């Protein structure tokens, strides 16, 4: 993994020192809130409903044990003993005090971390496939390119005051686990006819109040052109993007209003202009970064202990069947540790859980961890012979839940329990759905299902791309939840369709239960997933399940 060089270290330390001075001047009255607000946001500090919130960047979701232990230390020292992992692979602390934040940032700098550009109208933390560097289906590890993009975008003088925030996601695999089509720029590694690796470049995707599936602006971009091409896109957006209306300022609107062809012409022209200035130093730098992401020395061992546990221990077998993904190395597996124990807050980890995960990563996973946008923790490289011991250790800390990819593995934004922008709660809805499917014992029967909940139209909970999406709104002073069906965040991306009128807070969990039961009724076989069934039969049977026979018949007739 990438280690800060002298430049990174000096830059991050100087930013902490600047922010320390800014906090002092705010507290002594030299700075007004209007003056201070943009400064704190540049350093990831929000003021939320009950307290400040510090959002710390976890670049492309990658951590090692030292970093995770430091995150646990921050949780204990400056917060209430836990942290919240987000849908952008970051971590948020919900209770810091303003005076403490400079010390928190210094403690982060001690392990090569920061909170820069986790807010504001800048290029945000670059997100990536959480199985990067481990997945069997991967062309190449995308993280060196993500790190190059991080360095290029950090404090980039041209891009500190964009029309709106700007998010880039990258995957090294044709299977899209990074929701690249819902980002301002999505980069998907592909091979051309000659077998060379490059990127499919997607632009103008996004969720929020105007959800859009990103459009392919370049089918194949050689890796050497990536930085100037991204710079050309952001540069065109910086000039053309609207600054008159916050809700029309994202690049998805720029692309939509101007048309992809015009945007492509402008980007290609700008690219032609700036490409010669990229002399190849960026590629030399990338090669140096790549060396730091070399795969660990995978061990050779027999898998007898694994096979025995799998055959004899049904709890272990269930966990293996749901929480493991194929690894590129013989004898290895990718472990997804669920932060969705039934009834717990999605994405939250206590400091004790973080320390245990750090210990387990050091012992069993070549000291690597990932945070997924689905708010789980990934141990990317675990030899199968170590899985029984790992599973036992995880279970002892409430981290052994076998539900990854199932109905209770719910993405939920913080919602109105924490967020100042929220219009309704999301966390308790997620908790109650998880408890309900656990009580009914149906989630393994239901199988692959992505439920995603947002507590406002900004869609941090990715509800538009949930197979079942839930959007919490304020309807005349009462929480109300709209349901969408058929969303998809993968390479076959689709925006979900609204079912009809929303449901009250105490009606939403029974409504979701009716959808699950309707699916079990409708599916052709246990192999047909919820999404496949929805795509085959459409909305009608689900409308009937939600609203009664009359509504379902109308949907069928339409």
């Amino acid at each position, binding site marked *: 993994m990438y280690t800060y060089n002298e430049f990174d270290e000096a830059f991050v330390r100087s930013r902490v020192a600047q922010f320390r001075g800014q906090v002092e001047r705010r507290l002594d009255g030299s700075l007004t*809130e209007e003056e201070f607000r943009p400064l704190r946001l540049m350093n990831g500090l929000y003021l939320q*409903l*009950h307290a*400040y919130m510090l959002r710390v960047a976890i670049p492309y979701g990658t951590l090692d044990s030292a970093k995770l232990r430091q995150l646990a230390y921050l949780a204990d020292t400056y917060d*209430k003993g836990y942290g919240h992992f987000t849908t952008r692979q970051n971590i948020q602390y919900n209770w810091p005090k303003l005076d403490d934040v400079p010390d928190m940032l210094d403690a982060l700098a001690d392990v090569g971390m920061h909170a820069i550009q986790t807010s504001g109208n800048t290029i945000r933390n670059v997100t990536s496939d959480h199985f990067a560097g481990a997945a069997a289906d991967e062309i190449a590890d995308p993280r060196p390119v993500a790190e190059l993009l991080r360095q290029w975008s950090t404090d980039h003088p041209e891009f500190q005051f964009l029309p709106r925030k700007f998010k880039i996601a990258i995957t090294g695999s044709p299977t899209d686990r990074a929701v690249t089509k819902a980002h301002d720029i999505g980069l998907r590694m592909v091979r051309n006819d000659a077998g060379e690796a490059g990127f499919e470049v997607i632009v103008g995707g996004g969720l929020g109040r105007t959800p859009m599936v990103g459009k392919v602006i370049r089918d194949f971009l050689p890796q050497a052109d990536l930085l100037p091409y991204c710079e050309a896109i952001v540069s065109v957006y910086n000039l053309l993007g609207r600054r008159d209306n916050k809700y029309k300022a994202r690049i998805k609107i720029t692309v939509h209003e101007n048309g992809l062809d015009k945007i492509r012409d402008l980007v290609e022209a700008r690219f032609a202009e700036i490409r010669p200035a990229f002399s190849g130093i960026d590629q030399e730098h990338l090669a140096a970064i790549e060396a730091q992401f070399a795969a660990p020395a995978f061990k050779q061992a027999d898998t007898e202990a694994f096979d025995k546990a799998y055959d004899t221990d049904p709890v272990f077998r269930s966990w293996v069947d749901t929480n493991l993904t194929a690894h590129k190395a013989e004898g290895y597996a990718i472990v997804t540790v669920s932060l969705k124990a039934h009834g717990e807050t999605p994405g939250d980890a206590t400091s004790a859980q973080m320390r245990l995960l750090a210990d387990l990563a050091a012992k069993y996973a070549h000291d690597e961890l990932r945070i997924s946008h689905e708010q789980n923790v990934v141990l990317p490289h675990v030899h199968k012979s170590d899985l029984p011991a790992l599973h036992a250790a995880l279970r002892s800390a409430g981290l052994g839940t076998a539900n990854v990819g199932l109905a209770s593995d719910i993405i939920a934004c913080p919602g109105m329990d924490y967020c100042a922008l929220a219009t309704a709660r999301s966390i308790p809805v997620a908790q109650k759905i998880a408890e309900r499917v656990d009580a009914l014992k149906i989630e393994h029967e239901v199988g692959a299902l992505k439920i995603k909940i947002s507590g406002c139209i900004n869609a941090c909970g990715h509800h538009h791309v949930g197979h079942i999406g839930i959007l919490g709104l304020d309807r005349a002073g009462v929480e109300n939840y709209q349901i969408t069906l058929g969303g998809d965040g993968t390479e076959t991306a689709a925006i979900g369709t609204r079912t009809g009128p929303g449901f009250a807070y105490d009606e939403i969990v029974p409504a979701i239960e009716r959808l699950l039961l309707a699916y079990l009724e409708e599916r052709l076989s246990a192999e047909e997933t919820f999404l496949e069934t929805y795509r085959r039969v459409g909305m009608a049977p689900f409308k009937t399940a939600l609203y009664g026979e009359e509504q379902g018949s109308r949907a069928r007739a339409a």
Partner: protein
Amino acid sequence: MSRKFTPKVITANDLRDGDVVYLTADDRWSRDHAEAELIEDEAHAEIRLIDASRQGDIIVGAYLADARSGANGPEPVHFREVFRAKGPSNYRHGKQAFEARA
């Protein structure tokens, strides 16, 4: 005829720790909603909001929130203000933690 004015309290967040605070009739910032000044006159509300907004060295983001008179003092009306006055629903953190201890 003009619309009837819904009573209001003035609320903000504390500058140092971000905690939700309410302006009292004797010009303190209380952490207890019940201690807030219940403002029933629109013109008075505007003046009090100007007073509050001048105290940027203590608080952040003062605004008027709907409230009603209750047995122990003003109570929040909208569910957002109910959460602000209590704390999150997933943990007993925020103001409810202090109530639990009392």
